[in-house]
């Protein structure tokens, strides 16, 4: 939203194609630049490949049989699609939030402490401090500070999603991927999460997939419009929503299809 200085590009996707099991192609040689410490929204009708695109950034797809990406995804200049990439280290640097809250079946505290214990050797005290900081960062601390031993599954839906955000930021990643993070959350809790995302923008590079165009307009700096596996248009959010260059974009944002 502020444009004093051209921000650095954090992620650079080049000729990125994606194939599901059986060779079905979902993405077609897309290029996309994700600026550092900004919010990039990815919009488009269902099945357009927006989630698929996001899922290449932490290679979460490689968990599934037969899925593969071609092209390059450069994170700080390094191609993470390279088979030699250390996936565990990559996922420490690139956190992910899913469509539904996915707290682990453990206490609120342990949900946040878990990735810390996974990646770092920390003393108890350090862990406690960083868990508190992460919960503060996710605007959840005040609500759960007296029930840290309670199961994460016992929280409300919106709280669970913020817990997942706390879990994702605990290990201090550079990038946060959000795959329709509010699609299973009620409207009030959704606004809270949007506020939170806006605050996280200062510290993290955020890429958010959303089917909600108002949401994209409210919180993002830049927006990419996907259609049938291709990026049709990318630009500053305001420009894309008020003066789209492509006809397809205009049709989509005015609700003619999708």
């Amino acid at each position, binding site marked *: 939203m502020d444009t004093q200085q051209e921000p650095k590009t954090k992620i650079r996707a080049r000729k990125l194609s994606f194939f599901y099991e059986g060779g079905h192609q979902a993405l077609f040689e897309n290029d996309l630049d994700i600026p550092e410490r900004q919010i990039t929204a990815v919009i488009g009708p269902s099945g357009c490949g927006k989630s698929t695109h996001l899922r290449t950034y932490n290679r979460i797809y490689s968990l599934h049989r037969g899925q593969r990406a071609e092209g390059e995804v450069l994170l700080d200049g390094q191609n993470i699609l390279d088979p030699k990439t250390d996936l*565990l280290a990559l996922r420490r640097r690139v956190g992910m939030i899913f469509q539904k809250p996915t707290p682990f079946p453990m206490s609120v505290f342990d949900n946040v402490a878990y990735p810390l214990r996974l990646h770092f050797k920390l003393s108890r005290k350090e862990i406690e401090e960083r868990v508190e900081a992460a919960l503060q960062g996710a605007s959840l601390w005040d609500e759960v500070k007296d029930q840290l031993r309670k199961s994460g599954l016992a929280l409300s839906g919106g709280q669970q999603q913020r817990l997942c955000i706390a879990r994702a930021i605990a290990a201090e990643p550079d990038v946060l991927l959000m795959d329709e993070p509010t699609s299973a959350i009620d409207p009030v809790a959704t606004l809270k999460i949007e506020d939170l995302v806006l605050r996280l923008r200062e510290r993290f590079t955020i890429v958010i997939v959303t089917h909600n165009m108002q949401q994209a307009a409210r919180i993002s700096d830049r927006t990419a419009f996907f259609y049938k596996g291709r990026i049709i248009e990318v630009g500053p959010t305001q420009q894309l929503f008020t003066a789209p260059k492509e006809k397809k974009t205009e049709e989509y944002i005015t609700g003619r299809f999708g």
Partner: protein
Amino acid sequence: MRASAWSDPVFRWLCMICAMLCGLLMVAFFVQLAFASGEAWSEFGLGFFVSTEWDPVRDLYGALPSIAGTVFTTLIALAIALPLAFVSALFIVDAPPWLSRLLGQAVDLLAAIPSIIYGMWGLFVLVPLMDRLWIALGVDNEYGGLGLLTSGLILSLMILPYICAVMRDVFRMTPPMLRESAFGVGCTRWETARDILMRYGIRGLLGGIFIGLGRALGETMAVLFVAGNIMKVPLGFLDGCTTIAATLANNFAEADGIQRSALFALGLILLVMAFAIQVLAQYYLRMTSAKRGEK
């Protein structure tokens, strides 16, 4: 008038009677065993539990060797079967569909093998194999391959399919997004299985373990063939042993009088053990459900 107007209450009564019959049967087992073992209890008292005698000539009977054998063989079986079932279930769930189906069915088929076959295979294949192994290793091997460890091995094979089947279901029922979340924070496959899947499916996993436990406790035929049927408390893995079920099967034919009563007492102990495990399992699940946040 539609038939359901009168058939519905009848059907309901029928259901209720059947359900109550199950409960009654359970009670009847306890009562009958308690009744038939009365003589042994009044003769030996609680000493029956700790006595290692089994002397039909002097009519002195004790349960300790059988109880110890039952507990030890079951523990060995679980110790072998649990990790095996866990990793094979993990592999089967993640394998390509054709391999997953093939291996899944292979494991399921293990459950279809009659226990007498396990017993024969144990006696004619596994026992000589173990014997040769111990001789080759220079280990003192008094019982020629029979005994505690071999019994535990056979039992572990028998309970493996049950535990594995339950674990497969548990892994399959875990929401894919939860697994992805675990990978998303940087878990390896092993860490995901150990820390997330296992906790998520603890109820199902325990169910599988207790099914296995129940089967191992009561298994008769297979153990009978390979335990050695020695009425002593086994002190080493290679010691010959017996189990409650094997003792019963071995001795009922020619038992009468107080020996028969002592056998019923053993039966009662076995039933109580199996029952206690069920109760403990339920209790454990209730105690831990709050911690896991089930509402």
